[in-house]
């Protein structure tokens, strides 16, 4: 009886690992092909599939730039936007969440619930009203429309609230008050250092979001020198690159490599953050 059970477990395990291995291939192979083909010349790519890197990365890179795609500039733009939006999102999300967790005032519960509802509102669909508003202010084709709305980031605030609820120590705040610290001072000097792990997690998410965001910059920006990486990807789909596969793959690869590096360093923060953001009453 016991042996039969053990054998059954063994067989099941075999099939489960087989399934996991297939899924592993499905996830990895496209990404790996992308990275490898970036190092192969177009001739090599046309000759056949290979999972081994080749030596033509520099050539591909030169080819990519020769067609008028300013990849370093796009990289710098994306990095600037991602870093700035991360700072804004993290600071203001935690500031708002701090108010909702630490202070008691009328309507606190309602505001918290309202923010949860806001997370699910499809804001992308109101982009045209936003565009017109920004156009009237003369702010289209600048980075302000991409940064200013992050002051009121519902998703970030919700995450920060979940995090702060788990770690705020009211006694510490009261002690600081008795020592004469101002309310904002307490947030800056006492809460912020304690909340750093949560801030890193939220920071990674907002960095990745900004880095990958295509739609908003695509609507708002029109000068080529201000384009972000996803917009350059869109240009790469154009005719000039139709047959230069090596260059296309390299260009696509360069846009995802920074994210893969961030993930390799911080996957622990990211995985724990997803579960935290999702589970609620």
């Amino acid at each position, binding site marked *: 009886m016991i042996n039969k059970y053990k054998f059954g477990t063994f067989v099941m395990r075999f099939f*489960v690992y087989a399934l*996991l291995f297939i*899924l592993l291939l*499905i*996830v990895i192979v496209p990404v790996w*092909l*992308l990275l490898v083909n970036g190092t192969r010349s177009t001739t090599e790519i*046309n000759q056949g*599939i290979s999972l081994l890197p080749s030596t033509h990365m520099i050539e591909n890179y030169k080819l990519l730039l020769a067609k008028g795609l300013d990849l370093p500039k796009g990289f710098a733009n994306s990095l600037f936007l991602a870093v700035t939006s991360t700072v804004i999102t993290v600071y*203001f999300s935690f*500031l*708002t969440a701090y*108010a*909702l967790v630490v*202070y*008691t*005032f*009328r309507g606190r519960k309602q505001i918290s619930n309202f923010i949860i509802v806001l*997370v*699910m*509102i*499809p*804001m*992308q*669909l*109101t*982009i*045209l*009203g936003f565009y*017109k508003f920004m156009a009237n202010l003369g702010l289209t084709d600048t980075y302000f429309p991409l940064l*200013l*709305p992050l002051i*009121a980031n519902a998703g970030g605030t919700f995450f920060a609230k*979940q995090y702060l609820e*788990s770690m705020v120590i*009211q006694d510490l705040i009261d002690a600081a008050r*008795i020592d004469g610290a101002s*309310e904002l001072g307490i947030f800056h000097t006492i809460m912020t250092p304690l909340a750093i792990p949560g801030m890193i997690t939220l920071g990674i998410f907002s960095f990745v979001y900004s880095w*990958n965001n*295509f*739609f908003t910059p695509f609507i708002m920006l029109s000068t080529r020198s201000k384009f972000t*990486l*996803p917009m350059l*990807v*869109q240009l*790469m789909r154009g005719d000039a690159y139709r047959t230069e*596969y090596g260059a296309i*793959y390299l260009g696509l690869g360069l846009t995802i490599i920074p994210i*893969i590096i*961030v*993930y390799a360093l911080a996957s622990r923060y*990211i*995985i*724990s953050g*997803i*579960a935290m953001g*999702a*589970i*609620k*009453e």
Partner: protein
Amino acid sequence: MKFILKPVGSIHSPFTDKAQTPILPTRSQFKKIPTGYLFLLPFAIGFLTFGIYPIVNTLALSFTNTTIMGGDGEFVGIANFTRLFADRVFLRAVGNTWLIWTLNFIPQICIPMLLAVLFTSARLKIKAVGAWRAIFYLPNLLMPAAIAALFGTLFGLYGPVNQFMVRAGFLHEAFRFIEDIWVTRSLVIFINWWMWFGQTMIILMAGMTAIPIHLYEAAVVDGASVWQMFKWITLPLLKPILIFIFVTAMAGGMQMFDIPFLLTDGKGSPLSSIQTSVILMYIKYNSPKGHIGAASAVGVLVFIMTAVVALGIFYVLGNRDKDDTKSKRKSLFKKNTERSQS
């Protein structure tokens, strides 16, 4: 200003001076306005300016014939909306969006559910769960624009998929995948699944590990099968999480843009089979004159549709059984949150 007179809870420390009775609002009286409101001020201002105002503005634009080139247009009533329903393009785009999203959501919930059950199984004891999870989540972080362009290239006429299929003898000659309606749709569905199944799995696993083990122990004693335990314990207790996954996936799916836009020519080719609502909105916005009024009408309708469906699901599924099981569940998920945070 009723709230000034009220004790304001935790910020009302015994050291606040009550004796001072100022005539002008002094610093100490200012302090009595709940500090929480002051902390909320940036969010409130940001939300009203960049959240509420654009919604109102989009709605207002949808009743005008404004173009980007022509400046502010005139009020045209519901002409934009009647035109949308008249020419069938809008309904086709909404239909495409729902079709692609539904066919994507079924595997996006079923496969992660299976994986989550396997990973949390006490019998199988799968090794390196953390590593599998981390790898399966990876696609979610990659740039959708780049992924769509990647798959467009992989399935191109001279792409690696055709090379492989022809050389291995599955096809006689290269197949124009991207020109076939169902292949293209399937690709959009597959890419969406590929990007989101890991995320769904992590959320489901967090929910499953929070279910008290003694429920399963009691079920085993009663002779329940694995399937019965899944059906009567796991599924009901996961319901709040499943609703969350469904609603967020739906709101995201209705806004699908990057992948169908960049997979083919940016208009939803072939034969507009992957033209989603947001692509249609973009096409109207990007027309020679820039019909921003007509494009807003698309946004308004899809916005209302998404909000109605999301809220409907919340109220129908969330409140159907209001009896004592709900309070039990609530306390369970409180525990759940605490555990996932530690």
